[in-house]
């Protein structure tokens, strides 16, 4: 059997099941360094198979946020019901992965995620503005106009990126910011 580490140069096909399973075991063992791990997780992410999906679902909660980011992207792409699973992982994930989950929910245009995203937005003591920014962008992509009044206060956010994106999101939702109304 070809060693999993040499698979990077190969095109991954759905017939490489044994190699894929060996690679998952190798990755779970934690013997690879971070760079090799990320490289191999990205190789694995090219393979759309149920057992890979199962591994990726576990890895969303990996302590390594880079593995978690790849896993979120995979689950969002290949799970049959990604929204519910990603929302379940949201609060247990690392901060960096939480941002990726929020981005994925936006890309999925998950209307059912709107209440969760609004709660996340309004949760105090967030670490920096990046999560608020990601939530605002995701809400804009989902496009539910009923959330306009909940995000309007963030036109006064301390972070310029957040303020700009709230204005853009309100415009997308068809509800202009106060300055435009007056």
């Amino acid at each position, binding site marked *: 059997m070809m060693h999993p580490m040499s698979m990077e140069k190969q095109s991954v096909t759905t017939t490489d099941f044994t190699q894929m399973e060996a690679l998952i075991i190798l990755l779970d063992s934690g013997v690879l360094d971070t760079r090799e791990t*990320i490289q191999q997780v990205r190789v694995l992410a090219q393979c759309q198979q149920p057992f890979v999906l199962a591994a990726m679902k576990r890895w969303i909660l990996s302590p390594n*946020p880079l593995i978690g980011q790849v896993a979120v992207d995979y689950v969002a792409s290949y799970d049959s019901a990604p929204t519910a699973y990603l929302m379940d992982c949201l609060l247990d994930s690392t901060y960096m992965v939480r941002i990726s989950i929020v981005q994925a929910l936006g890309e999925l245009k998950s209307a059912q995620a709107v209440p969760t995203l609004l709660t996340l937005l309004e949760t105090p003591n967030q670490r*920096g503005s990046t999560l608020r920014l990601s939530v605002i962008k995701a809400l804009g992509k989902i496009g539910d106009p009923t959330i306009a009044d909940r995000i309007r206060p963030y036109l006064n956010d301390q*972070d310029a*990126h957040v303020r*700009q994106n709230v204005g853009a999101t309100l415009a997308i939702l068809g509800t202009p910011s106060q300055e435009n109304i007056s």
Partner: protein
Amino acid sequence: MTDYTQCFLYVEDDALSREILQIIMINAMGVHHLHVLEDSQDFMQKIVALPQKPDVILLDINVMPIDGFTMLQQIRADARYADTVVIALTASVMNEEVARLRKGGFNGAIAKPVNVMSFPSLIDRVLLGETVWHVV
């Protein structure tokens, strides 16, 4: 795996954005030379003081005390950095902002927050001399 021997400079005042990019560039990409500035105070003096001339400069736009556009003007005004690739890292989704970046003379833009799925390949394209406008 790509061996990143180039020198990168990142100017960013948001701590988490700095942390995310550093984790991706150092841990996932294996970049050897990444310098980070937490603000734009005395920007050009700090660049000149670096042990290597940066090959690629990644600039947040809304940095204090001088913004990304002004930093770019200062870079371009110094002949030593005329060929340095300068990429804006922006959270803006607005077309007007992207148009301003293009008109301002940036070599490209990458949307924030960055992630490990897309950022390494975008940097690879930048290093190949491609123009990258990845704003989503």
